[in-house]
């Protein structure tokens, strides 16, 4: 208990977090770059084109990993939100609000890449399919969190309000997901499925590599954003001035 608390305290101390994450970030970026290069090479060059969809299937290597990430980031963000609200950990506040734009970007990439993919495959940019709809709702949830954060002048208050909203959204997400699925089976619109279940290994591998790459991307992006935010907020404090003097380490 007390050890956990001490760990929490340590992690919650901005200077410590800043130094620790500073060591981690470059490695995350390197891991992301290597995996992304490898995954894209295998996806765009090595993997075969689909016999039905042709070359456009390659959008999948962006689309699907970012779709996975869009949900994962929301859960992580709400987790930080819980830490921020319950234990008032400032670093958690910052990690929470730094996650939101990254998650929103993943969601947007999913939507845009899916739409671009939909044009050749379905003949339309958009249908009100279950997964598309819940992805759209997820985007609204992210935008709500970002919008709420921006609506306050006092950063800590803003972060805590946004955390609360993220948690409320997290509780609702399963309900939304379930109800949208049910709604969709009820209405059965244009008979389009996103069936990728029997996926060939030559396509699965690059997909998994890209999925790993996006996770490193999220980690690197999150920590970089959080560090910048922290430094900007604490620019009047001694540790931040020292860190700046050392060249942002």
């Amino acid at each position, binding site marked *: 208990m007390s050890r956990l608390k001490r760990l929490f305290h340590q992690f919650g101390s901005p200077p410590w977090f800043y130094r620790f994450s500073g060591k981690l970030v470059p490695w995350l970026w390197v891991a992301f770059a290597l995996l992304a290069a490898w995954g894209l090479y295998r996806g765009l060059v090595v993997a075969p084109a689909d016999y039905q969809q042709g070359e456009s299937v390659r959008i999948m290597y962006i689309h699907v990993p970012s779709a996975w990430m869009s949900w994962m980031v929301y859960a992580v963000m709400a987790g930080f939100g819980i830490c921020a609200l319950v234990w008032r950990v400032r670093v958690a506040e910052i990690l929470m609000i730094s996650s939101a734009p990254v998650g929103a970007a993943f969601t947007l990439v999913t939507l845009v890449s899916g739409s671009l993919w939909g044009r050749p495959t379905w003949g339309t940019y958009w249908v009100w399919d279950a997964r598309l709809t819940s992805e759209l709702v997820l985007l609204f949830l992210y935008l709500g969190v970002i919008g709420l954060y921006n609506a306050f002048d006092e950063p800590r208050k803003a972060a805590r309000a946004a955390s609360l909203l993220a948690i409320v959204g997290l509780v609702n997400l399963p309900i939304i997901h379930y109800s949208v699925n049910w709604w969709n089976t009820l209405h059965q619109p244009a008979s389009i499925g996103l069936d990728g279940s029997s996926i060939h290994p030559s396509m699965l591998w690059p997909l998994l590599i890209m999925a790993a790459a996006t996770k490193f991307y999220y980690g690197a992006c999150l920590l970089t954003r959080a560090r910048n935010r922290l430094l900007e907020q604490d620019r009047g404090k*001694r540790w931040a001035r020292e860190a700046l003097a050392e060249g942002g380490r």
Partner: protein
Amino acid sequence: MLQASRLTLERHFHPVFAPVDLVVGRGDLWVLTGANGSGKTTLLRLLAGLVTPSEGQLARSVAAAWVGHRLALKDDLDVLENLQLARDFAGRTDADPLDAARKAGLEMALDQPAGTLSAGQRKRCALARLLLSPAPLWLLDEPYANLDRDGVTLLDGLLADHVGAGGACVMSTHGDLKPAIDGYRELAILPAPPGDHW
């Protein structure tokens, strides 16, 4: 009733005022002084528990009554209804709203919607609510503002009664407007010293 030690609050990651130590006991009347923007309102909100302190300890053992800049009057209800509401909310069936209004000098405006009151009348109405609250600790932010001479005397009377009956009060004020009550103590709120505290 209330004990604060090294209390301060950060806004935008800067402390608003220098750490404050304050002990309030029965019969105490504390007057907070300080320049505009020094942090009196902020400190009172901290003491009221409306804001959580960034640093320092705060322990309060009794209920508090709060009169800030926002007077919590319902513009659509008249004076008496506003006071009845306060009484019901405080759960004090023994207190009489009419009597409170009289003591605050509002008998002329009893059935006027609070939205049509003048600034001073509104302040009086908010102060009348104190008489309907069971809280032993009053926290008043610039209670003298907008009051006429008569109102100031009246408020001094209320304060003297409350403090005399074992209550306590922390209030902020400006300039020469000090309670005409013996034994009040002043606490000057100072700006935070420059430099950081990590």
